[in-house]
């Protein structure tokens, strides 16, 4: 099968340059290619075209060379023959085939997990609703089901979890999502106000506002094709690493809380406050909303702000390292975290896991290293932190190390910082017509991918957002298998996945 080969630093590609094949060769190629963990699917979606056609686009990421392979196939809109399912061979395809089936009514033959994904408002089958989600069931006198949600005990987003347990032991967990569906992608393509589009990207997952905004401006700047001020690259990176620090610290605190380690909890709460207040003192918003803007910035770093960030980050890193040290020297904590919620490397790769959760299972998936963009592609080589155990402790330790690593990265970026000329954001730059561009960045959860397609006039005709949670929810379901149900909270928090980023 033919692909258009590009990478994470090249510009937009013209739609007519993307080769189109038939499903048979598409299927054949992926069947063999995905057996090698070097490749994984970044995105796979369908869009209607003129002449009553449905065109399917695939973005395939090659971790070995950093290439991004773009391929496509098409078929008639009203053609209702079933396609042989790729999920049957490669479980990582499941969210994409489920989305395509749910949205367009495409049937995938042999699909082992034919479940709704997010119940979008424009779904093909209006009779499929939240209330009749087809939960998996098991029969047996000693089995019972536990249903949790959609509203949870804490102040978090909604989602429904159904456990099938044998006594205390979890045999199966099924996670039904879609409660958070707001129609983000549809609204994105429905407006030409680029500021509104940026705000929508930031709202895709509010705890990853910087990661999603960075993916969005990358996409838009590629389509605009104009050079951006050099100063923006380090500033955006500082913002992204601050977000990573804040959230990894928050999750360390959440895990501490769930095992009754109050000292760690309150220390992390205070450190997170300090981190997000640093972001707020820079841009006025604790989550870094409004900080990342196309082709310019409203909050250029001044020498004073850069010094303030450096100072705070050094202090946070020092104190956080003390917490990390305390965790590692507390046998009661290790007894809860170690050997709990294990996802082995092979499983993680099979389901297409990404980000820090994958790295805790020995799968070195990290866009900063494999598909570098911005400064990572230039002066700043990134070395991923990888653990092999795949348990709660490994996920926690990856977080811990990443906080310290991000702090070091910010320190290096701001060392001897000299403010340079920057521009104000440009919300009116014309975009290349009939083109495709993507923004691919490593947020704190992992691989965050935005894809835009433009029409004849250079307006965004379709926009696709992928939060890393789309891949990783399945990893949580696997992690709790065989565990006591009372370990679910720490398993859940060791992943801390996004509901709204999944449901969009």
């Amino acid at each position, binding site marked *: 099968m033919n692909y258009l080969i590009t990478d994470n630093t090249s510009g937009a590609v013209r739609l007519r340059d993307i080769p189109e094949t038939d499903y048979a060769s598409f299927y054949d190629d992926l069947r063999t290619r995905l057996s090698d963990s070097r490749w994984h699917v970044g995105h796979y979606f369908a869009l209607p075209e003129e002449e009553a056609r449905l065109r399917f686009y695939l973005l395939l990421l090659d971790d070995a060379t950093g290439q991004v392979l773009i391929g496509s196939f098409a078929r008639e809109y009203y053609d209702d023959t079933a396609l042989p399912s790729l999920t049957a061979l490669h479980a990582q395809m499941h969210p994409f085939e489920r989305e395509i089936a749910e949205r367009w009514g495409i049937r995938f033959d042999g699909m082992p997990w034919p479940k709704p994904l997010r*119940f*979008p*408002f*424009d779904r093909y089958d209006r009779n499929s609703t*939240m209330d009749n989600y087809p939960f998996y069931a098991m029969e047996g006198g000693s089995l019972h089901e536990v249903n949790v949600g*959609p*509203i949870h005990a*804490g*102040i*978090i*987003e*909604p989602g429904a979890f159904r456990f099938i347990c044998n006594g205390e032991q979890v045999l199966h967990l099924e996670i039904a999502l*879609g*409660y*958070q*569906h*707001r*129609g983000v992608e*549809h*609204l994105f393509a429905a407006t030409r*106000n680029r*500021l*509104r589009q940026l*705000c*929508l990207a930031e*709202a895709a*997952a*509010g*705890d990853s*506002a910087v990661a999603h905004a960075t993916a969005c401006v990358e996409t838009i700047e590629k389509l605009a094709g104009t050079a951006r001020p050099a100063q923006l690259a380090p500033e955006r990176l500082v913002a992204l690493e601050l977000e990573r620090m804040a959230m990894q610290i*928050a999750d360390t605190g959440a895990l501490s809380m769930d095992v009754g380690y109050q*000292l760690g909890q*309150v*220390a992390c*709460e*205070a450190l997170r*406050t300090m981190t997000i*207040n640093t972001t*707020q*003192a820079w841009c*006025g*918003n*604790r*989550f870094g*909303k*409004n900080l990342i803007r196309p082709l310019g910035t*409203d909050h250029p770093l001044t020498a004073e702000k850069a010094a303030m960030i450096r100072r705070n980050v050094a202090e946070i890193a*020092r*104190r956080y390292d*003390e*917490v990390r*040290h*305390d965790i590692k*020297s*507390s046998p009661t904590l290790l007894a809860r975290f170690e050997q709990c919620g294990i996802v082995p490397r092979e499983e993680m790769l099979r389901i297409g896991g990404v980000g820090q959760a994958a790295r805790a299972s020995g799968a070195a998936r990290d866009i900063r290293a494999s598909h570098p963009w911005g400064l990572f592609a230039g002066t700043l080589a990134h070395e991923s932190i990888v653990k092999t155990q795949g348990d709660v402790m490994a996920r926690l330790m990856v977080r811990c190390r990443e906080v310290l690593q991000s702090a070091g990265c910010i320190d290096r970026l701001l060392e001897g910082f000299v403010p340079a000329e920057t521009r104000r954001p440009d*919300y009116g730059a014309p975009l290349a017509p009939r083109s495709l561009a993507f923004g691919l960045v490593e947020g704190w959860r992992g691989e965050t991918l935005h894809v835009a397609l433009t029409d004849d006039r250079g307006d965004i005709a379709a926009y696709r957002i992928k939060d890393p949670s789309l891949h990783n929810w399945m990893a949580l379901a696997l992690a709790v298998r065989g565990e006591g149900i009372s370990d679910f909270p720490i398993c859940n928090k060791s992943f801390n996945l*996004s*509901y*709204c980023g999944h*449901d969009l």
Partner: protein
Amino acid sequence: MIFPKIRVLRSHGRQAIPDLDAVELTSEFRGRPELTEPADAESRTALDEAAALCPTGALAAAPFALDLGRCLFCGECARRAPQSIRFTNDYRLGSPTREGLVLRPGDRRVEFDRKEVRPEICRCFGRTLKLREVSAGGDASVEMELGATGNVNFDLGRHGISFTASPRHADGVVVSGPVTRNMAEALDICYDAVAEPKILVACGTDACSGGLFAESRAVDRSFFERHRVDLWLPGTPTHPMVFIDGVRTLLGLKTRQ
């Protein structure tokens, strides 16, 4: 094993903000905007441009008004039309009425009309208030800020105000998010499960108006047509101090001048 703990404790020190009513936020924080009627044609044009760019239609140029209930506090309008709009760091943004969130030129505070507060609210909840939070399309940032109100820094629990796990234990519901169609029923069930008398708080710009998602077909806001909201709190997300100030003012523990 004890020494690492002592070290953490010593670095941690004392974190609680001593007086929540005396908090002042960084000057960068975008809180209550102040509007000035444009004096010349140039600033009038700038204001028109700002209104056209506003991502949610929160800003109206003529008659000049800014609806905090729709505002994302992105600050873009103030940069386009600095003569007409200026953001202050005032976090006292909560209002007992939706109309109270609409600011006009000359307004120097968000009015808190005490007449609009039901008398049973101070009587029943003045000393302790337990709330159940329901996220119905919230983007996790509002939820995290609500969680932060009880953390070691803000420690709102010291005033008897906190969040509870079950609606059966709650005196009221805090809603975040625009209310998605897929969450509408669960929100109804949760609200009905809270015993009377109860209060209802809309937290965040998405909850107040639908925000970015006001026109989305994936959203169903009929909940807010059927139930009276006691406190409207704008923000993207709502800063913990906006929540703390709003709730304490609602309960009559704080006045707004």
